């Protein structure tokens, strides 16, 4: 059973990391897909992460938590 889960995760985790990366970069389809996957948690939080990345990219620093 552990072996089966290992195989599943081996494929799923890199795909998820890729999806998160694309969502943060502004890929609308990736963001929508990610929202579906993570629906039990806050969807707004995902956008919040994107906002932080945008700030970092354009102003070179992190959000000050305002």
């Amino acid at each position, binding site marked *: 059973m552990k072996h089966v889960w290992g195989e599943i995760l081996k494929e799923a985790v890199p795909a998820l990391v890729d999806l998160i990366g694309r969502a943060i970069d502004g890929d609308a389809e990736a963001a929508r897909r990610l929202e579906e996957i993570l629906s039990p948690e*806050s*969807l*707004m939080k995902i956008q919040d992460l*994107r906002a932080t990345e*945008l700030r970092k990219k354009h102003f070179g620093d992190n959000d000050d938590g305002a």
Partner: protein
Amino acid sequence: MTKLLTWVLFSCLTIGCGGWSVGKARTVIELSGDGVQLTDQVGATLYRDRLDRIEAQLERNELSREEYDEAVRPFQRATAAVVSARESLRIAEAAVDTWEIRGDDRPWREAAPCLFAAIAYLKDLWEEVGLPSPGPLLDAIDIFTRRSSGQCRSQVVEEAAP
């Protein structure tokens, strides 16, 4: 009329005005949960649309850091409020479980005011940006306001508030 008022006053003093039951607590948690989820879904869509526009402006160098912060701040506050409400919901749910299993309603009496504060704050934020609050959230607030609730002593709600 006077007799009726006297009876209501007597009932409030002896058994409490609009007291809670496990069933009522579960109903209000369910309504709050639905309301928070709807708020989160609508909020995420609005936030995404706003960030799409902001990103386009940033690419054209049309926004200063201050303007960016100002544009994003209402959504950051709303996100913090959603996260806080979810946390309050988890605590309230555990409190009702304790009440049901052990017959001790003290955890619920402590958790209820915090859940109320969290969802009321969420509703206020929504109104601030001119959006109608989801029905279940308003129903939950209505039930809370008709029942006795003390002061929230948890930091979870305080941290979300500005």
